[in-house]
């Protein structure tokens, strides 16, 4: 296997509605930032891979429009996933493994504000049996939360603590959208919006973008003094039909964690893409994380959840903390689909 490192990461300041900028204008600054940080231009990027979805933009082939932000001339080697950009990073990692690329630019962006997000997300469901009923994304998460409470995996008190801890952690994250929180006991006085979920259990609706640059071996060492190595990466999927899944567990996360080698060494930090509070509990169990692991010091998706970028940001945040010396070995996780349907696990380590 080739050694592959995260060598740069940038993200937007995420917000509820980015009404001044279109997708190209929102994305371009983060692409410029990662390239400028490394002192390279697009000609030194061997492979470019992005994540986006036309369903958020409400525009056909919207990812082609945003290629304007890349500088794709002379023609570049490029690919795209209609998923969280963590999967674009996975594709780029595979491309580097094949030896066809030494450097890759990965980016993802999502404006959730143009449409009714809870309805838009229903379009990713089974088109025959589920999507015609328009179940909204919060209601589906509530089904999962109810199952978790019933199984005794978590409590509403623990869920409120996760919400408060995440948004207080975000106070030191200038890119986060929701910063600070009331005490869990105060949060629990609020009404349920989709029982058993309260407002604090749900992620904010966010517009935002992020970019990561990957580089192989010596090229990574040339580009930065602090490459953060991807020691393992894997992604797995659970059944599409919600009714056949045990929503209280995440077998796909557990398998991806095993394949990525999470348990091969001590983990001191995890960035988990758990948009709803109870999902953090499900993921901690699936990943086998101990109580000593710092989870979502950035605030995680409960503090800013720009769809498509939010999973890639977990990898970027974990890598940035390792590069700053705040952690040695970290786990980054990304999810896509309803109720943690698809999961990607990435193990990151510093150079020393």
């Amino acid at each position, binding site marked *: 296997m080739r050694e592959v490192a995260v060598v740069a990461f940038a993200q937007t300041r995420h917000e509820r509605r980015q009404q001044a900028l279109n997708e190209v204008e929102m994305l*371009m600054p983060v692409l410029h930032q990662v390239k400028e940080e490394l002192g390279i231009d697009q000609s030194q990027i061997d492979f470019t891979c992005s994540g986006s979805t036309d369903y958020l933009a409400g525009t056909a082939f919207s990812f082609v429009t945003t290629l304007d932000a890349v500088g794709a001339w002379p023609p570049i080697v490029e690919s795209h996933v209609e998923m969280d950009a963590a999967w674009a990073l996975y594709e780029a990692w595979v491309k580097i493994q094949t030896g066809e690329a030494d450097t890759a630019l990965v980016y993802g962006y999502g404006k959730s504000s143009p449409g009714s997000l809870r309805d838009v997300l229903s379009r990713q469901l089974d088109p025959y049996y589920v999507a015609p009923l328009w179940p909204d994304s919060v209601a589906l998460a509530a089904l999962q939360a109810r199952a978790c409470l019933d199984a005794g995996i978590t409590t509403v008190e623990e869920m409120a603590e996760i919400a408060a801890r995440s948004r207080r952690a975000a106070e030191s994250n200038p890119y986060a959208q929701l910063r600070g929180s009331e005490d869990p006991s105060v949060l629990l006085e609020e009404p349920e919006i989709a029982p058993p979920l309260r407002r604090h259990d749900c992620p904010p609706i966010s517009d935002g973008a992020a970019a990561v640059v990957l580089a192989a071996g010596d090229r990574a060492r040339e580009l930065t003094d602090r490459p953060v190595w991807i020691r393992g990466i894997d992604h797995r999927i659970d059944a599409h039909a919600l009714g056949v899944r045990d929503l209280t567990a995440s077998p796909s996360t557990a398998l991806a964690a095993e394949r990525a080698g999470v348990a091969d060494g001590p983990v001191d930090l995890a960035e988990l893409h758990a948009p709803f509070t109870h999902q953090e509990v499900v993921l901690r169990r699936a990943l086998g994380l101990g109580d000593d692991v710092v989870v979502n010091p950035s605030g995680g998706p409960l503090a800013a959840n720009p769809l498509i970028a939010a999973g890639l940001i977990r990898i970027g945040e974990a890598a940035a903390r390792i590069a700053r010396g705040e952690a040695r070995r970290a786990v980054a996780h990304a999810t896509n689909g309803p109720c943690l349907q698809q999961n990607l696990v990435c193990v990151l380590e510093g150079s020393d």
Partner: protein
Amino acid sequence: MSGLVLPERLRDLEPVRSIRTPARLEYTYTAGQATSRFLRGIAQRKILGERCHVCGKVILPPRGACPVDGVPTHEQVELPDRGTITTFCVVNVKFSGSAMELPYVCATVVPDGSDMGLFGMVQEIPFDRIRIGMRVEAVWDDEPRPDLASIKWWRPTGEPDVQVDEGRGA
């Protein structure tokens, strides 16, 4: 359906061959800064391109980035509402929402001084006389709005045709 045994009461029923599940989503589109600048110009009968400071090309309609260099464009360039047809097609098929009489011609028109073209209709000339290199001018709506439909169509100016480089401006 091989191998599947249906209960007696379902055996002679017509099979379900398709289902209809209508879906409708509404979006509030954000034009962004560059497109807003362009559309505000259109509302004043002005065609405003934007020049890339790297390659010098005039981008039209501006979307916020030079698609060649991936940099923001900030220098506005007012272009004349007169230009050259660089490609066209004759439309013989009616599609929903179109009130156009068939056949009609849609074309790419590159305004003088621009490096890119605008999409539009060509009218006031028989469809079979339209050609690449033909000079045309915009026919504006009496009450222009921030909407490209404020250019109702393009019509011939009568100037001599000009040579058009493949896929580029005149």
